[in-house]
């Protein structure tokens, strides 16, 4: 069960591929352009939620987007320290970009 990091918008192929590989035992961290997948009431956010994975979002990148207040609540904001702690919990990591 890897930790997935997703750095692509819902319109990029990396997003769809990540979604296909995302299992309910996995965790997903949205960062960079990945944060746009967490906007409330969008197809993208619903699809990520339906994966059953633990969902996180990198807070500095969410703040840069200007959409922090529009994100679905199921994505837990993490700072860089939180990212490190999350990485330590998972044996492997897969970066989608």
């Amino acid at each position: 069960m890897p930790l997935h990091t997703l750095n692509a918008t819902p319109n990029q192929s990396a997003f769809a591929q990540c979604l296909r590989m995302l299992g309910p035992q996995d965790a997903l961290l949205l960062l960079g352009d990945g944060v746009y997948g967490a906007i409330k009431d969008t197809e993208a956010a619903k699809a990520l939620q339906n994966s059953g994975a633990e969902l996180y979002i990198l807070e500095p990148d969410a703040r840069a987007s200007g959409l922090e207040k529009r994100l679905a609540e199921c994505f837990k904001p993490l700072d860089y320290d939180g990212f490190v702690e999350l990485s330590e919990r998972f044996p492997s990591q897969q970066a989608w970009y």
Partner: protein
Amino acid sequence: MTQTKKVLLLTRHAPYGGSLARAAVDAALAAAAFEQAPSLLFMGDAVLQLVSDQDASAVGTRSHGRVLESLPLYDIDQVFVDQTALLEYGLTSHDLAIDVILLDDPAMRQMLADHDHILSF
């Protein structure tokens, strides 16, 4: 006297993932400095460039939406936006940092047809 060519600047990428969004606005402002203000069309992920309240200080770059707010000072007053893409992201024109004109696909196709040159970013 030669007639001024109509230039369309088409931008399609999100603001921070790469350098294309920044290159697009730099090109628009540079062209405007030479009184060649292009038409600006934000398509697909580029609608995300326009979101208000961006704060990129934590990621060490300039806030793209704030730079776009300076467009009127360069006499670029009309900004066109892909309405379908905005809708896909659950956004409306009220979520954007500047006033825009929303276009559907036929209207965007018409824009591409109406210009002599297209700069694509």
